[in-house]
C-alpha cells in the first residue's frame, strides 16, 4: 500500500509537470502577441522592449524559460519554496497572490460541496424509494432544472431577487470570515447555493439510478429475506453499494473546481482562483496562470489518489498491492 502511494505520488509530480509544460507551449505557440508590449507603455523603443523582454526572461526560447521555471520551483525564490516567480504586471510574488485568492475558492467549494452532496444524495434516495410517485417526478423535475439552467443566469437571477429585491443576503464580493463571520455567510450563501444546484441535480440523478440498480440486486432480496426493516435494507445494504461511484465522482468534482469555478466567482465577484487565472490569461501574465494551473493540477492529482485509496476501503474487492 505504501509503495503504491509512493509510486502514485511520483507519477503525480510527472503529470503536474507535463501540464505545466503544455501550458507553456500553448502560451508561446499561440499567436497572442508579445507580453512585453503590454508593459512597455505607449510607443516603446526597441531598446526599451529588449530590456523588458530581458527582465521578464522573454528573450530566451520557451524551453529555456520552462527549465528556468522548474529550477526556481525546486530551488525556491526569495519568497521561499516553492518558487513561483513574479507577475509580469507588478513584479510581486505570484505565490502570495495565489495564496491570497485560494481561501476564497476553497471556502466556496467547501460550502457548495457539502450542500450538493447532502441534498443530492438525499433527493436521489427519496426519489428511488418513492419511485414512480409524485415525489419522484418532482425530484427528477428539479434535477432537470438544475442540469439545464446556466449558472450565470441562475446567479444573476438569485442576486436580483434575493439580494436586490428582497435584501435577504449580502451582495457580490467577498467578506473574509476573519473580519465578519455573518458578513461572510451572508455573502457566501448565494454562491454556495448556485454552484451546488448543478451538482446536486447530477448527484440526485446518479444516486437515484445507482440505488435503483442496487435495489434490484440479489443481495438486496437476501437482506429482505433476512427480515430486515426496509429502512435498513435501503440504507445499510442499498445505499452502501451505490455510494462508491458517488464518492469517486465527488472527489474529482471538488478537485476540478479549484481552478474551475470561474463563472460563479465572476458572477458573485469573489475573485477566486479561476477568476484570477482567466484575467491573467487575458493580460498575458504567464506566471500567474502557471501558478494557478500548478495548484489546480496538484489538486486534481491528489484528489485522484485520495479517491483511489478511498475506493479500496469502500469496496473490499479492490486491493492495491
Amino acid at each position, binding site marked *: 500500500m505504501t509503495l*503504491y502511494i509512493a*509510486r502514485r505520488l511520483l507519477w503525480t509530480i510527472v503529470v503536474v509537470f507535463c501540464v505545466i509544460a503544455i501550458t507553456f507551449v500553448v502560451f508561446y505557440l499561440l499567436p497572442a502577441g508579445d507580453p512585453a508590449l503590454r508593459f512597455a507603455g505607449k510607443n516603446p523603443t526597441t531598446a526599451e522592449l529588449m530590456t523588458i523582454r530581458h527582465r521578464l526572461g522573454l528573450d530566451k526560447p520557451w524551453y529555456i524559460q520552462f527549465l528556468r521555471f522548474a529550477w526556481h520551483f525546486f530551488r525556491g525564490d526569495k519568497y521561499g519554496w516553492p518558487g513561483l516567480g513574479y507577475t509580469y504586471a507588478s513584479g510581486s510574488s505570484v505565490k502570495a497572490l495565489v495564496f491570497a485568492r485560494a481561501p476564497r475558492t476553497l471556502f466556496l467549494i467547501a460550502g457548495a460541496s457539502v450542500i450538493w452532496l447532502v441534498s443530492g444524495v438525499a433527493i436521489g434516495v427519496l426519489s428511488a424509494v418513492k419511485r414512480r410517485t409524485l415525489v419522484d417526478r418532482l425530484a427528477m423535475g428539479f434535477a432537470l432544472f438544475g442540469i439545464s439552467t446556466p449558472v450565470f443566469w441562475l446567479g444573476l437571477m438569485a442576486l436580483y431577487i434575493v439580494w436586490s429585491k428582497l435584501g435577504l443576503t449580502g451582495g457580490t464580493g467577498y467578506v473574509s470570515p476573519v473580519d465578519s463571520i455573518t458578513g461572510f455567510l451572508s455573502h457566501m450563501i448565494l454562491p454556495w447555493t448556485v454552484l451546488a444546484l448543478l451538482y446536486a441535480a447530477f448527484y440526485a440523478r446518479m444516486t437515484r439510478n445507482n440505488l435503483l440498480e442496487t435495489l434490484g440486486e440479489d443481495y438486496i432480496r437476501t437482506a429482505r429475506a433476512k427480515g430486515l426493516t426496509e429502512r435498513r435494507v435501503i440504507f445499510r445494504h442499498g445505499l452502501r453499494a451505490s455510494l462508491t461511484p458517488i464518492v469517486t465522482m465527488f472527489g474529482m468534482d471538488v478537485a476540478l473546481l479549484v481552478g474551475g469555478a470561474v463563472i460563479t466567482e465572476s458572477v458573485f465577484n469573489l475573485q477566486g482562483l479561476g477568476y484570477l487565472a482567466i484575467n491573467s490569461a487575458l493580460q498575458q501574465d504567464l506566471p500567474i496562470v502557471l501558478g494557478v494551473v500548478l495548484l489546480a493540477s496538484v489538486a486534481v492529482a491528489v484528489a485522484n489518489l485520495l479517491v483511489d485509496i478511498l475506493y479500496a476501503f469502500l469496496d473490499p474487492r*479492490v*486491493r*492495491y*498491492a
Partner: protein
Amino acid sequence: MNASENLVEIEHLTKRFAVKQGVFARGRAEVHAVEDISLNVRRGETLGIVGESGCGKSTTARLILRLLEPTSGTLRFDGHDISKLSQRALRPLRREMQMIFQDPYSSLNPRKTVGQIIGAPFAIHHAKGGRERVEELLETVGLSPEHYNRYPHEFSGGQRQRIGVARALALSPKLIVCDEPVSALDVSIQAQILNLLRNLQTEFNLTYVFISHDLSVIRQIADRIAVMYLGHIVELGDSESIYESPKHPYTAALLSAVPRPTTGGRQRIVLSGDVPSPVSPPAACVFHPRCPRFHEGHCDVETPLLRELGPRHEAACHYPLERWPMSDAEVRQAEGATRADKPHLQGAAHDA
C-alpha cells in the same frame, strides 16, 4: 495428406493467461488454463469435453478454433499446422470450422434480421449464398423461411439456438465446436437441439467438439470423451467405456455426484473441498488434494501421464479404479492410500 483419420490433432497444447493480482500490482501471475493436453478429433465423431467450471474446457474449444493463441504446443486442423498461423493466413480455414455458443440471448446481434445473421458468413468469406441458401438453412434447422426478416428478440431461446446452428452451418464447415449449446435451455427444448445436432451430423458428415458440464448431455451426444480437471485431461476414451467403467477417481466422483431422476439408492463418492485456483495448481497430480485414493509421496511428487487402461481408454492416474461401480469406502481402500479417513458428511470445504 488430408485423408488422415483425424480432423484435429493436438499435441502438448498449453495455454496460460497472465493475470494481475490486485489492480495496480507489479507481480504477474499466470492462470494455467490448459496444461499440456494431447488429443485427436476424428472425422465424423463427436468428441465431448466435460468438466467443472474452470477446468479449461472452454479454453480448449477456443484454442482448437484458434480464437486464442496457444502458449506452446502444436495444433493441426485437417493436416495443416495452424498453431502459429497468423489470423490472415487462417482465414481460408476459418470457414471450415464454426462455433455454436452457450447463450442464445447474447450471441445474436439484436439489430440484425435473422436473414442477415445467417447470411453474414457468406459476405465475410465472399462465398456464394443468397436469400435462397439462407431460407434453405432455416428449414434445415427446423425454422420457417418466413422467419428471414424477423429479429432475434421475436424468437424463443430454443429458436435462437437454431438460428445459431444455421449460422454455423452456412459455409458447410467440417468442424463445429459447440460450447455448452444447451446449458441455457429448458430440458424440453434442450432435447430438441440435441436431436437436431445429431441429425445434422449424419446429414452433413460433421465433426463436433462438444463442451458441456452436464454429464447426461455428454453421454447422449458424444462418441468419445475427454474429462478435464484444472487444465489437464484426466481421462480420455470411448464414451461407453468411460461411463461404464471410469478409471480416474475424479471421473468416478463426477459420475456418482450426478443426481438421477430415478429413485433408489446408489453410492456417491464424496469429494472434499473445492477446485483449487488455477493460478497456483497443486504439484504433480492436480487432483491429489481432493482425491480419495491419494498416496502421499507418490501422487504429490510424480505427475501421472495418460496411459492406456483399456481398449481405447486412457487415464492419468497412478491408482486407477479396478472396477465400477464402487462405493465410496471401496474407492478409499486403494492399497496404501493415505487418506482412508472419510470426510465429514458435510464435507470440509478447504481452499483459497
